[in-house]
């Protein structure tokens, strides 16, 4: 059964590659300071597959992203997410609307970005786009979890630096469930990444080293105002790799290893994104406006 779900997940992720595709950084959880180009729309499909401990069930949590560069310093993104658990059901788990603002116009040694996200999700959500607070339980059926709705506000302070072609990014996360009194939950995410080659070749190649970026992420929860610390929290270390398939398309993969008993032993993440350049201008033209 587990193999069937894994196979299905890989096939769906591969099909996603045919439909969509360009996120420059290879990270799945960590954000760096690079914003979406103004007027461009990035359509992405990603998947988090949780390989369970004994007694838990395998799950497959796909999500779609629509990221738009509103201005050079403001990027807005809409997420739609779902989840399927082996031996259980498949459910729609909600939506998220995130906004990132870059207060400083120029590049600095440390570049801050402010992040605000509103989440209209339910407790069956498993995409784990961030890990905060204490580790969730995985025992209840989807029929129960999907009935518990959560309106959450999530904020992040993103700090990111480029040092000799290395990107180093640190995210500090504070999340508040507006539906229930859970206090403020905390989390963190760290990432380092580097392209495998720093010179571009003249030929149009697909498998050149310059098209690959590799790195490492570390992320986890830090408890909440009701109990700050590492007790009963999930943490992951995750190698990441991104492949720029074409000018507009990229593919990402990350096997995350759980570091604590509360973590899933392994999270497999796949992502594919496609950049629609000049989307804003095209829409304006469609409605008779000037770009």
């Amino acid at each position, binding site marked *: 059964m587990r193999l069937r779900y894994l196979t299905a997940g890989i096939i769906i992720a591969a099909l996603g590659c045919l439909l969509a595709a360009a996120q420059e950084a290879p990270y799945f959880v960590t954000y760096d300071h*690079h914003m979406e180009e103004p007027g461009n729309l990035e359509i992405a499909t990603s998947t988090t597959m949780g390989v369970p401990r004994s007694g838990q069930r395998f799950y497959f949590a796909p999500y779609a992203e629509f990221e738009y560069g509103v201005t050079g310093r403001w990027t807005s993104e809409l997420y739609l997410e779902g989840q399927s658990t082996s031996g259980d059901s498949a459910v729609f788990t909600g939506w998220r609307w995130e906004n990132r603002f870059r207060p400083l116009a120029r590049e600095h040694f440390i570049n801050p970005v402010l992040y605000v996200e509103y989440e209209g999700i339910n407790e069956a959500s498993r995409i784990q786009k961030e890990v905060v607070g204490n580790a969730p339980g995985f025992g209840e059926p989807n029929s129960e979890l999907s009935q518990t709705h959560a309106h959450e506000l999530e904020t992040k302070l993103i700090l990111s630096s480029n040092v000799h072609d290395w990107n180093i990014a640190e995210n500090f996360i504070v999340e508040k469930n507006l539906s229930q009194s859970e206090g403020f939950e905390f989390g963190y995410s760290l990432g380092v990444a580097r392209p495998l080659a720093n010179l571009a070749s*003249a030929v149009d190649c697909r498998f050149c080293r310059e098209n690959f970026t590799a790195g490492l992420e570390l992320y986890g929860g830090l408890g909440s105002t009701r109990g700050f610390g590492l007790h009963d929290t999930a943490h992951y270390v995750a190698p990441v790799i991104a492949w720029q398939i074409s000018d507009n398309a990229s593919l990402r993969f990350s096997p995350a290893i759980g570091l604590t008993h509360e973590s899933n032993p392994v999270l497999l993440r796949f992502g594919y994104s496609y950049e629609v350049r000049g989307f804003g201008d095209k829409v304006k033209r469609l409605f008779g406006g000037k770009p």
Partner: protein
Amino acid sequence: MKRITVIFALAGAMWCQNLSYEPDPNWQAPAEAATKANPLAKKAGVVGGGKKLFLRNCVECHGGDGGGLREKHSADLQLPVVQAQSDGALFWKITNGNPDRGMPSFSRLPELQRWQLVLYLRTLTASSGRE
């Protein structure tokens, strides 16, 4: 016939080119950055990679010949006011962008690729891309 084709091609390029481009006076590279030398200056062989990067990252706003696009209000990279800038100044502008005027930062590209772009920008003249 060939002459007429060339005249029409030139006229077309002139029509699209952003000859009205006016540089942002507040967008100036600091002196220290402007004096940086291009480490690839003596490696003409890598300019082809710069062209590929230009086609991938810059064409949408600056056009295939770098003449700028009027509808995008983007810089005409062939103009003397651009070409007279030092390699270091162009590198700084590619790195930082001018987000409030629509020019994104390309700091996500490795340093040497940004220098490759500067090398390629030097090949953009009034006749390039219109042959």
